[in-house]
């Protein structure tokens, strides 16, 4: 059996009396692309926050390549190679698009190399023309691209994407799906998304969260047919 890249054991997060995440055992293989779906409030974002050190789990463990990172700081986890694109774009609003990407690229690279990588990344995320503009002035969808550029520039081994298609046009969704597949050639990804069309474009295996726990884990097609998932999440349209 291939060694797991990421492994959570009985991972739980309680806020006061609210159990946002309950005993989640989740395994991701090296190079895998997994989609995470589930109703709003099912605990997906909380789960991501624990994986990236933004929240310390109430109970349980997160193992990244066998190393326990459940009590590590966010910056340490980032250095180990987990990158995240958060649900609400978290970017440097007061800095230009170029400076944003540069901050990400310069941690691992020399000045000259970082500068070159920034130019390449601007090209890749389609923001060459907006390079000198302040990120705070960009449209919502464009800020999503900036954040994606930030994450990719730190060259992580595992990339978490929290609703990457939100606020993007149909065309951009297609472009994002293509980009996700391309990234997946060399990296592992976990993608949270509500857009089932998008999920069909990228996913093989899907994990469904409900009320803080894993409800079911299966292929996209089986998930779409699953009556329980349809009931709590997809609604009637999935029948079509």
């Amino acid at each position, binding site marked *: 059996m291939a060694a797991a890249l990421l492994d959570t054991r009985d991972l739980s997060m309680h806020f006061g009396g609210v159990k946002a995440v309950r005993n989640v055992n989740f395994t991701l293989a090296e190079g895998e692309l997994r989609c995470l779906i589930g109703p709003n409030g099912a605990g997906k974002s909380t789960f991501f926050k624990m994986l990236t050190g933004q929240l310390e789990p109430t109970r349980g463990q997160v193992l990244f390549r066998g190393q326990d990172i459940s009590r590590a700081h966010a*910056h340490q986890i980032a250095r180990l190679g987990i990158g995240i694109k958060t649900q609400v774009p*978290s970017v440097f609003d007061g800095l230009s698009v170029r*400076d944003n990407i540069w*901050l990400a690229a310069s941690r691992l690279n020399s000045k000259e190399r970082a500068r070159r990588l920034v130019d390449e990344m601007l090209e890749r995320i389609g923001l060459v023309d907006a390079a000198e503009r302040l990120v705070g002035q960009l*449209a919502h969808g464009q800020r999503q691209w900036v954040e994606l550029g930030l994450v990719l520039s730190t060259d992580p081994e595992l990339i978490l994407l929290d609703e990457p298609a939100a606020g993007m046009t149909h065309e951009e969704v297609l472009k994002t799906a293509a980009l996700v597949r391309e990234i997946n050639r060399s990296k592992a990804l976990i993608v949270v998304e509500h857009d089932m069309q998008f999920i069909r474009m990228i996913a093989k295996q899907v994990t469904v969260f409900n009320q803080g726990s894993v409800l079911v884990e299966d292929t996209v097609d089986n998930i779409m047919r699953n009556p329980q998932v349809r009931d709590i999440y997809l609604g009637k349209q999935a029948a079509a």
Partner: protein
Amino acid sequence: MNGRSLNILGLVLVSVTGLAFMLLTPQLAELDTVLDLTVYMIMAVLALSLALIWGFGGILCFGQSAFFGLGAYTYAIAMFNIGESTLPFLLAIILPAAFAALLGYFMFYGRISDVYLGVITLTVTLILFNSVNSTAGPEFHIGTARLGGFNGIPGIPPLNWPFNKTAAIDLEGMFYLATGSLLATYFGLRLLLASQFGRIIVGIRENERRAELLGYDPRAYKLATFTIGGALAGFAGCLFANWGNFVSPTIFGLAQSAQIIIWVIVGGRGTLIGPVIGCIGIQWLSAALGANQPSGGSDLWSKIFANAPLILGVILIAFVLLVPKGLVPTLGDIGLSLVRRRRAREQRGFEPQQAE
């Protein structure tokens, strides 16, 4: 003209003006003017220390005067004990820096939020004020130096050339030293901010969480910034103790801490030249208003104009309400818009840009 060339133009302008000011003033001005200008230069170094940690590091420190005062007291006490200024000078930088590092360690690594950070730093400087203020008795001394409590420490020996006790620096020398220090601090900070370190601390100011998720430890960067700010303030304090040969607890007081913040607000956060201009401008204004006081007439208006704190308060409120970004950033905006308007006129017709 783009941002980069504006930047270079600004640097050249500051260098030329700064050097000309430093070299020409002692030739042209009376000695007491030179003396007044010396203290402006010293205070401008202090303003720069807060410009760094607040304007660029995003750390709202209400107690920059704590490090300033520590620098001054350290120099005074060490000078009475040692008699030769090389070590006291270094101590006056190292001790406040170490104190800032210790305080910063607890604040940043304890994840104290911004508001409490302001409260804690203010409290620290007020505690120092009260402690030092109540050391008037002869039993309070460090080595041969009496602390003097609210009376302060008079007759502090001046700086001398390193390791040469007999070559004391005179008043004119003090002016060169203060102005040179200000220029060196200014250009040093410019270099620092252009470096990777400088860009990262600005990134942390913009979005600490994101910086963290990219693998930077914000606590370490903030601590480093805070410590550098503490060292600079201590350095300014050492110069200040030299300038008047006197230091008293008011250096830790509320008025002093508030002033530093006002300089930065008026001059503009996120710039270096702004707080320098704010500092010099406000000190000059306070001096001019203060000079009115004894001869002021008895009618209401002359009483109001003789009340420096009142006028300064009005200026501060006016700035916060009308020029919230501060003098220099606002002038920069106006300048850029003039340039753009001209360019637009040259091009005629525009494409709307993207934004939503």
